[in-house]
């Protein structure tokens, strides 16, 4: 009983992390139909911001988090306005190729600047350690992860439901042409959404260092997981990303624990199975 609950919790916490990293990609894909494979690079950027601030400038972990968010957000808008915008009407293949090219460049640049070794950080003592409940160990850091992610999810959903910007975002995701017709400045909305999504990815990346480690290949490795979550959850759906992230997080963690022979296998099978059953994802339309 003990290990099972612990594994479930770990999987859930991992899923929360994946949600933060992936939700931005789902929304921007749903809104603009732009296949942004460089999303992982922004997550990686946030992580390296935290590493640099902590290891080179002595900042505390929590203080770096808002900066991971902000830097990733700003950087993404810079790319969006210059490189991505001209490609909104281009073919999927072109979008895939351009953004993959950017990821390659990011990975290589990071390896050049930071080297290829894993980048450790020292999280503060109050985030270390375990709670032991009923024979199961619950890592403090993972509890922290869950709390942060849930808080952000609540903020996101509340923001979407109750703010004007949120209403505009929902309109733009639902029907871009109609939103434009209603006078909504879809291009600006998209820039905000893009920044927000990439910022969250950056934050997620920073939070991920302690859980999965960080090296120059992060952007590429986690890109695949992100894409799986987005396809499984459904484009443009926050709740879809949430559910998919939990499913993938638990499948991966439980899979590796109970069936180590299957390894990473399991999440690919889950993705293929879901896509065949529901091509638009669990919560997707179209």
């Amino acid at each position, binding site marked *: 009983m003990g290990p099972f609950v612990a594994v479930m919790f770990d999987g859930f916490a991992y899923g929360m992390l994946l949600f933060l990293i992936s939700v931005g990609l789902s929304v921007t894909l749903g809104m603009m139909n732009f296949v942004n494979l460089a999303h992982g690079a922004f997550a990686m950027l946030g992580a390296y911001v935290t590493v640099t601030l902590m290891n080179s400038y002595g900042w505390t972990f929590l203080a770096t988090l808002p900066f991971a968010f902000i830097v990733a957000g700003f950087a993404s808008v810079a790319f969006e306005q210059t*490189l991505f915008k001209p490609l909104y009407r281009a073919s999927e293949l072109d979008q895939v*190729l351009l953004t*993959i*090219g950017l990821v*390659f*460049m990011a990975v*290589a640049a990071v390896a050049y600047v930071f080297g290829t070794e894993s980048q450790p950080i020292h999280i503060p003592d109050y985030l270390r350690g375990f709670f032991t409940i009923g024979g199961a160990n619950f890592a403090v850091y993972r509890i922290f992860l869950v709390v942060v992610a849930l808080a952000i999810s609540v903020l996101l959903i509340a923001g979407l439901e109750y703010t004007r910007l949120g209403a505009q975002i929902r309109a733009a995701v639902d029907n871009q042409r109609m939103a434009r017709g209603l006078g909504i400045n879809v291009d600006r909305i998209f820039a905000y959404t893009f920044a927000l999504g990439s910022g969250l990815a950056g934050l997620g990346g920073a939070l991920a260092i302690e859980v999965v480690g960080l090296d*120059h290949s992060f952007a590429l490795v986690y890109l695949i997981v992100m894409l799986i979550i987005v396809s499984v959850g459904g*484009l443009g759906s926050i709740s879809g990303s949430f559910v998919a992230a939990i499913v993938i997080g638990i499948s991966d963690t439980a899979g590796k624990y109970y069936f180590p022979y299957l390894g*990473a296998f399991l999440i690919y099978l889950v993705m293929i199975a879901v896509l065949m059953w529901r091509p638009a994802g669990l919560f997707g339309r179209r």
Partner: protein
Amino acid sequence: MAATSGAPARPHEFLGAQVRWHPLEIVFWLATLLPFVFFPSYLSLASQIAIAALFALSLDLILGYAGIVSLGHAAFFGMGAYTAGLVSKWGWGEPLSLLVISACAAGLVGYATSFVIAKFRHLTLIMLTLGIGLLLYEAANSASWLTGGADGLQGIAMWPLFNTFDYDLWGYTAYTYSLIVLFVIFVATRRLIHSPFGLSLRGIRENSVRMPAIGAPSESHIRTVYTMSAVMAGIAGALIAQTTSTVSLEALSFDRSADVLVMLILGGTGRLYGGLVGSIIYMVARDQFSGVNPQYWLFWIGLLLVLVVMFLPNGILGGLARLKLFARSKP
């Protein structure tokens, strides 16, 4: 609606002209013989290029002609490589029959997956191809009792070609063999492109919605071409196993799928020779830069992709075609 051309159209001649071998094509294939004379020390590389070109050609068939974006085509390449390697390990190493066996194995996997592939488009399709490729990679990784896992396949024992031509150190046999296989398959592919089936594929690429509306069984066509492409990729994989006597997980990896995509995009999709030209340039460049830090190489490939998408969307051959049109329109 006045006619813009002076003479009345002659439909049969027009279509016929598109099928004839262009002099440049003859030049190209004659040029592939140059390495024997001018670059004898590079024949192993030439052999690798020929194999990469075959692989790129197989991808062009589905991507450039049918419009199917695949991020996991290495699945079939690796399938062919491992099949050839394993069968030779188990005692049968005759090269030509191994080509056939590997082609069948890869073709079977291609046929099975084609049922899934044919039903989807856009992002779902891209993700499925990626997922299938990754799945196969992980499966091969886990089944290390069969594949040798990360160490690669051990104990490959290829027999000499026709029982006389051994794979010499200099690569004469390897290049001759690979080149001939490439050429034969190329001629068959060229025929396919210029057939009614080739026209149907282009129809699917140009407007997949219109195809069923003119009575075309698109899904069936896609299954057929996907299987054919898998067969070709499998043969390329088998060739690698035979000419280098090594098979590793790399043959199934996302890296390999991405590489072949880059080669094809570089040369230009849907132009038959795009994959060939792209492979030559890519592999030669990689060979020249092989001493350099791999991160350096990755950066430039990334930059190349960005630049190609922004400035040369139809690849090198597309750029050349546009140049020719531009030059022709000048008085």
